[in-house]
């Protein structure tokens, strides 16, 4: 079409663009631009009124300058003037400028909205389209407020031109994305859905994007679209390649619309109506059949369009996950693509197979392609394709092929791109643990990981190998031998030294019989690495040394020598110095027996053990928490390793310092008696099953007043487990987000906010962002650090957002942080109790409630709840043995609040009287409020 005009005669613009292109340097360009800007400014400010053409030309120049990357802070008013021009091209340029240089000046917005309003009501379809394009391009809140109610009317009106309908549909979509609250379909819903039946293919193509987005948010209201979409799809799929005229693309009928129809269907479960479902299955089969037919054109556009539909159909088949035949056919088709000469198809086939691997129907079929995938990992030239191959191997891994896959991934790691190493390391570590049958293989794998990619091995990985070795005595000797051999390498990674130090310190004796690894040889080997290591590793090694003194008395003199030297005992690092001094002293003055007791082998990391549980139930103190309990919540949450048959070794909370002696801060993991957990009988569990999706979920909240651990929230997609521990005025809460589906959650983000009075601040809550992706079936953890500054009544809010299958999920929960969590129990005699009770006699210090029992009045249950509250439950204090009294001190940063509680049950009337007296009246009121809902 060479005769078509190429510009609109803006000679000056072309000259300016040429000038810029001829500039030899950045400076020259800036100089030329500044000259032009000055020129335009003077024209705009000049006395002479500019004609439409000049205005258009200058505005266009400004636009060009802006698009070059320079700031433009004027010209908006001239652009707005162009909007009211009757000349199409002037109006068009005005709108373009407004769309590209969005401005937040409210006066300007008012003028723009006025111009748009005029054009929308002009009944001139080209003007209406320009206005709609502008709204869609800007998509601001202000525009949504001004036009969101008008556009649906234009969209469904009988006399609207097709091109305007198309623009209106997508314009509405954009507004819905930015301001969903302002776009109310209501009465229009059914007419919008019926646009799927429109005669004009362009209208259907535009409308379906809107319908898909609305369906994701309101599936029920739009569910009639399913049968319409199926019949539309069926008509396209069965049409001859030329039926659709201009909507046929390289012999493929309406590829864009087909993809969108298939995409829309993925918002819904398989159709319930048998006829509709039959028709759909027929379509899917036809699409799969067409893939086997010879191509109608050699052009890549033909095969791309055809395969785009095929991949979308496969996505739908995977989404339904209910048609074994189709799933296996899909898998075979993807298998063919794995060896296709087009890199793009290999990439997509690998990606798509990843999701097929998680379906029980096609998992086995996917596994048959293992050799091809391994080959791809080795030979693909493009790192993004290799990454897909690695993902697929991970997804197809199970007990039958774990050894092969882990070996391949390990060997790939040696040459893997830096960008994907850390992820690969985690994947290998997870697979090795998940599918370990014999633990020597597991130990080998992890040590290999450290050897090959030590820099990318995170703490979690090496903590974990140590935990497992400590808990399994059948692998300890092997681990000691292997790590000893690994340390022989002249250059070995610091993580290897850490693992080596820890394991030899614990189990070096198991290999000391061999003269090649005698105690002194072991020590010298470790110490040869000492000077190259960082402070934390050196600290760990010092602890290993003192353990050596206990294990091998013959090394005592040598090690004391090392500890005594200036570089240790006078080390500038306080931690190292302290350890050297203390260990030296310990080894010199303690008797062998004392030494043996102090430096005893680490106890196994806690397991699900009922004896500890029983102990904890009997004696509950505030604060610390047991790891077993954490295990429970992890298991409930569907932990990756859950349900394995590996025996009771699944504790996954590494000690914060991974320290041999547990000297550093933090609860000594594994020494159960001091860490009295809060494993109360889950007396409230009957109260709250899955919560409905409402604005703020707070029904989980009350269940946690008297307990610290459990499931806070659960729906079909997500489970949130909670585990918390409090000490003094500080708390730590572990949140476990479990993806219950087989599909990845994307853009996963959580925010904790302190609303209302909490902002004063009363509470300080800190956390780090979580990983944005939660794989299907996986669980991620988030830690909140909580500081109570002063007493409080509100609860912090946890907001969770993520994408599941394209739909944005958003929910807000009340976090169960309540004032009683900061209780320190206070034991006292009857006399003391009543004396203090009398001291707190001012009317506002007391809060009292009489209420009907909502739960069992069983003595044990009541005791368990009161213990869970955190205060000390005092026996033999109240003259009436039926009554309960508790005492405690609430620790805030600013002050301590003494609290006394008395609960008087009346079994006959099924009533309670609850009385609280606290040194601060707000605390009395809040505790009374919280507790009255617990019994």
């Amino acid at each position: 079409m060479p005769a078509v005009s190429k510009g609109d005669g803006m000679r000056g613009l072309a000259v300016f663009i040429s000038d810029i292109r001829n500039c030899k340097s950045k400076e020259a360009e800036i100089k030329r631009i500044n000259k032009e800007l000055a020129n335009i400014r003077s024209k705009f400010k000049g006395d002479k009124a500019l004609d439409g053409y000049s205005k258009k030309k200058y505005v266009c120049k400004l636009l060009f300058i802006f698009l070059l990357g320079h700031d433009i802070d004027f010209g908006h008013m001239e652009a707005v003037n162009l909007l009211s021009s009757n000349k199409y091209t002037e109006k068009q340029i005005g709108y373009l400028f407004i769309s590209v240089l969005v401005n937040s000046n409210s006066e300007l917005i008012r003028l723009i909205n006025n111009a748009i309003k005029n054009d929308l009501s002009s009944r001139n379809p080209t003007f209406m389209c320009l206005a709609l394009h502008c709204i869609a391009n800007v998509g601001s809140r202000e525009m949504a407020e001004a036009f969101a109610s008008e556009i649906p009317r234009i969209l469904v009106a009988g006399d609207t031109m097709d091109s305007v309908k198309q623009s209106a549909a997508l314009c509405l979509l954009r507004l819905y994305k930015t301001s969903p609250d302002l776009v109310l379909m209501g009465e229009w819903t059914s007419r919008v859905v019926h646009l799927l039946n429109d005669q004009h293919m362009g209208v259907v193509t535009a409308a379906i994007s809107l319908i898909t987005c609305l369906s994701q948010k309101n599936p029920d209201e739009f569910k009639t679209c399913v049968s319409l979409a199926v019949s539309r799809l069926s008509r396209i799929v069965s049409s001859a390649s030329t039926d659709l005229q201009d909507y046929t693309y390289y012999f493929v009928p309406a590829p864009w619309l087909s993809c969108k129809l298939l995409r829309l269907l993925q918002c819904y479960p398989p159709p319930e109506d048998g006829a509709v479902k039959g028709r759909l299955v027929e379509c899917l089969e036809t699409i799969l059949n067409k893939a086997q037919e010879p191509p109608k054109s050699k052009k890549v556009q033909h095969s791309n369009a055809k395969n785009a539909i095929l991949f979308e159909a496969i996505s739908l088949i995977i989404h339904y996950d209910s048609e074994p035949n189709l799933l296996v056919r899909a898998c075979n088709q993807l298998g063919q693509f794995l060896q296709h000469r087009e890199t793009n198809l290999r990439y997509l086939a690998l990606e798509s197979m990843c999701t097929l691997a998680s379906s029980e129907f096609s998992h086995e079929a996917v596994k048959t392609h293992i050799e091809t995938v391994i080959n791809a990992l080795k030979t693909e030239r493009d790192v993004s394709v290799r990454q897909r191959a690695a993902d697929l191997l991970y997804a197809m891994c199970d007990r039958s092929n774990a050894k092969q896959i882990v070996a391949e991934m390990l060997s790939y790691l040696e040459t893997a791109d830096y960008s994907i190493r850390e992820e690969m390391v985690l994947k290998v570590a997870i697979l090795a643990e998940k599918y370990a049958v014999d633990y020597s293989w597991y130990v080998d794998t992890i040590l290999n990981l450290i050897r090959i990619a030590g820099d990318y091995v995170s703490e979690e990985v090496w903590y974990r190998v140590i935990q497992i070795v400590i808990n399994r005595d059948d692998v300890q000797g092997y681990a000691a031998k292997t790590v000893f051999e690994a340390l022989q390498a002249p250059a070995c990674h610091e993580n290897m030294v850490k693992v080596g130090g820890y394991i030899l310190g614990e189990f070096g004796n198991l290999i000391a019989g061999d003269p090649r690894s005698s105690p002194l040889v072991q020590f010298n080997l470790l110490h040869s690495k000492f000077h190259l290591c960082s402070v934390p590793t050196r600290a760990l090694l010092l602890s290993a040394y003192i353990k050596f003194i206990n294990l091998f008395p013959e090394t005592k003199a040598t090690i004391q020598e090392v500890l005594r030297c200036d570089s240790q005992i006078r080390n500038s690092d306080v931690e190292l110095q302290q350890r050297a001094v203390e260990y030296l002293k310990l080894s010199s003055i303690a008797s062998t027996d004392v030494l043996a007791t102090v430096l005893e082998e680490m106890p196994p990391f806690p397991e699900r053990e009922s004896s500890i549980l029983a102990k904890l139930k009997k004696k509950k103190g505030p604060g610390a928490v047991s790891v077993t309990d954490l295990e429970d919540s992890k298991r409930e949450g569907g932990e990756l390793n859950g349900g394995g048959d590996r025996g009771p070794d699944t504790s996954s909370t590494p000690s914060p310092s991974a320290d041999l002696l547990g000297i550093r801060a933090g609860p000594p993991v594994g020494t159960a008696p001091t860490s009295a957990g809060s494993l109360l009988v889950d007396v409230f569990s009957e109260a709250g099953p899955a919560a409905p999706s409402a604005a703020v979920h707070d029904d989980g909240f009350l269940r946690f007043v008297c307990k610290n651990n459990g499931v806070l929230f659960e729906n079909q997609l997500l489970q949130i487990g909670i585990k918390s521990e409090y000490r003094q005025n500080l708390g730590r809460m572990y949140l476990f987000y479990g993806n219950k589906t087989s599909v990845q959650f994307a853009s996963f983000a959580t925010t904790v906010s302190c609303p209302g009075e909490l902002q004063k601040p009363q509470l300080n809550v800190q956390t780090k962002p979580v990983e944005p992706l939660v794989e299907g079936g996986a669980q991620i953890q988030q830690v909140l650090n909580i500081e109570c500054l002063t007493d409080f009544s509100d609860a912090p809010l946890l907001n969770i957002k993520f994408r599941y299958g394209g739909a944005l999920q958003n929910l807000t929960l009340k976090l169960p942080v309540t004032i009683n969590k900061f209780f320190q129990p206070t034991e006292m005699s009857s006399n003391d109790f009543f004396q203090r009770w009398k001291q707190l006699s001012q009317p506002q210090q007391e809060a009292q409630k009489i209420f009907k029992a909502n739960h069992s009045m069983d003595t044990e249950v009541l005791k368990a709840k009161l213990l869970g509250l955190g205060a000390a439950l005092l026996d033999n204090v109240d003259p009436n043995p039926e009554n309960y009294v508790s005492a405690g001190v609430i620790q805030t940063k600013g002050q301590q609040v003494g609290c006394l509680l008395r609960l008087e049950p009346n079994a006959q009337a099924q009533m309670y009287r609850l009385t609280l007296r606290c040194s601060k009246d707000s605390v009395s009121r809040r505790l009374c409020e919280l507790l009255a809902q617990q019994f």
Partner: protein
Amino acid sequence: MQFMLLFSRQGKLRLQKWYVPLSDKEKKKITRELVQTILARKAKMCSFLEWRDLKIVYKRYASLYFCCAIEEQDNELITLEIIHRYVELLDKYFGSVCELDIIFNFEKAYFILDEFLLGGEAQETSKKNVLKAIEQGDLLQENQSADWGGLPRDELL
């Protein structure tokens, strides 16, 4: 689709279309990052890559790279053909389009894109219908030669 970028082999941005609200600073940062990433890739490499939580689909036509960012659930292959259809539209409109046509008539390139894609979704996939809409606007305009002062034409198709 979240955005579309056109840039030259030298890394010069020729067209940018954003379908999500971002600050100018963020836009510049994204552009810089993607231009660098894509120019560093070799010819035979796959046209898709993961970037942040988006998927990038790109294709080179002569001296110009066309690059789209789509979301997790979007279809890569059909996006490649979105790019191709856009190139075809430009080609038909300008008559054997080259990079210079897009530089000197950048506003036209934007208008054509707006007729084809709106809010990041396909509005009209028929070549005939899109061009009809554009030509209506051109009816009142004077002709102008497509000769850019003797500069060499590197045709995209």
